[in-house]
C-alpha cells in the first residue's frame, strides 16, 4: 500500500492528520508490518490531556508491546471504538479504519517538523 500524501509522519511511525482543530493519529503500514498481528489496543481515555511527545496509548501484538506517540499536545476526544472488537483493523487498514485516536489540538506548529509521505518512505527504504 502506498503511503498517503494527505498526512504527516513521525520517526516513531505514527501518522498525524489534522482537520480543523482535530488531530487523527494512527500507525503506519511499516509499523504494523513490524509489529505483526495486533491483538489489543489500549489508548488513553477521552478527556486525557497529552503533551507533545507523550504516549497516547499502547498497542499489543503477538510479538511485542509498543507505545504510540503524539507529536501534538491536546485533549483526547475519541478512541476508535471499532478497534475494541477488531484490533486487526490496524493490520488490514492502518490509514483508514484502523485509526487510533482523535485529539483536540491548539498548537499545530509541531506538524511542520514531521515528514511528508515521500520523506517517510525514503527514511524507511532499504
Amino acid at each position: 500500500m502506498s503511503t498517503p500524501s494527505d498526512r504527516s509522519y513521525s520517526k516513531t511511525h505514527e501518522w498525524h492528520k489534522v482537520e480543523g482543530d482535530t488531530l487523527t493519529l494512527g500507525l503506519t503500514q511499516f509499523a504494523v508490518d513490524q509489529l505483526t498481528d495486533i491483538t489489543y489496543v489500549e489508548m488513553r481515555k477521552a478527556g486525557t490531556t497529552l503533551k507533545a511527545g507523550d504516549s497516547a496509548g499502547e498497542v499489543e501484538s503477538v510479538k511485542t508491546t509498543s507505545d504510540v506517540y503524539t507529536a501534538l499536545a491536546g485533549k483526547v476526544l475519541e478512541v476508535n471504538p471499532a478497534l475494541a472488537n477488531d484490533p486487526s483493523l490496524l493490520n488490514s487498514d492502518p490509514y483508514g479504519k484502523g485509526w487510533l485516536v482523535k485529539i483536540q489540538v491548539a498548537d499545530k506548529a509541531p506538524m511542520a517538523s514531521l515528514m511528508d509521505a515521500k520523506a517517510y518512505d525514503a527514511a524507511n527504504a532499504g
Partner: protein
Amino acid sequence: MLKTPLHQFHLDYNAHMVEFAGWNMPLYYSSVTAEHAKVRSSGGIFDVSHMARLKVTGRHARRLLERVCTRRISDMVQGQCRYSLICNERGGVLDDVIVYRFDDDDFLVVVNASNREKIVRHLQAVKTAGEFNCSIDDQTASTAMVALQGPSVIPLVSRFSSEIPTLKKYRFTVKNLLIVKITVSRTGYTGEDGIEVILPAGAISMAMKLLFQDINLKDENAPIRPAGLGARDTLRMEAGMPLYGHELGEEICALSCGVDFALSLDKDQGDRGDTFIGMDALKKVAAEGGPARKLAGFFVDGKRSARQGMVIKQNGKDVGVVTSGCPSPTLNKCIAMGFLDAGLHAPGTNVEIDTGKGVLEAVTTPLPFYKAPKAG
C-alpha cells in the same frame, strides 16, 4: 546480512524479512497467528538454516562433546539425537543444542544462530585444552535445514518414505535422494510432531519441489504452508520451551531454566563416566538446595501481555522476572514464562506483573501451556 539457501523461496512467498542474528530471515509470510494456527491444525514449513550445524568427528569427538555437554553422550546410539545444554564453568548456559550421533566418532551439533561463533570458539578451546584428537567443521553455510511441523507432516512424508514415519522421537535417519544425503530427525521446536531435515545447500530447491510437488503452498487450505520466525516463537512459548537470550543465558544458572532433564549431574558416575564443564558449580547449587529462582509458567489476566524484563511481584515484594510472554494464539489468553522464587511454584499462586505503567494479575501454571493431542 547472511542469506539462507531458501532465500528465494521466502521472496517467492512474499515473506516479511527481518534481520535475526545476522541472517535475513522471514518473520512471517501472511500473518503470525495464521501460521501459528496452521502448524497446530495441520502443518508448517520453517527455514531453520540460520541455526549452526557443527560436525565433530574423529577419535576423541565423543570425549570432546562429553566434556562440553551437560548430558551423557556415551550411551547415545547411532541414529539418536539428544537435547543438551553447554555450560560455562559457573554453570551458566552458553547455549542449548541438539547432538546427533552418526557413528562412534561422528557427531553433529545444532546450535543457535546467535551463538555460532561462540560455540565454535568454545569447542576449539576445549579441544586444545584437552588435547582431543578430532576436527570441528562448521557446515552451516554448506547445508540447509528445514523444520516441517504439525499433525499433517508425518502422513505427508509417508508418501515418500516408509521409514521416516517409524522414527521415534529424537531419532534420525540418513536418506539418499538421488546423489544427496538427507538427514531427517523426529525433532522440532513447536510442541507438535514433525521432522527436521538437513541437506546440502544446493539440493534444497530440488528437495522442496519434490516434497511439495502436488501442494499449492499459496493456497490457504494447503495441508502445509510456510511459517516464519514469529510463529516459531509463539509456538515454542506455548510448548514451554526455553529460548537462548530469554530463559537461557550465560548469567543464568542451568538449574533455573526448567530443563533439569538435560542436566546429568551424575554423569561422572559409572563405566564411561566423565565430568562436564560447569558440573561442579551446578552440583554445589543443587547441594545447597537449588537455585533461588526457577522457571515458571503464568496465565496473565486480560489482554495485555507480560514481556521480557517485567518484574514479578507478590504483596509488593520482588519475587521474579518475566523472560517471555505473548497473547497465546491457541489458548486465546496471555501466557508468560519467568524466573520465580522457589517457594512460589505451586500451581494457582497469585502474583502481579509490573509493566512499568500498571500491574497485571497473573497466576502460576505448570509448563507447557499447550500439549499436542496424541496422534490417533
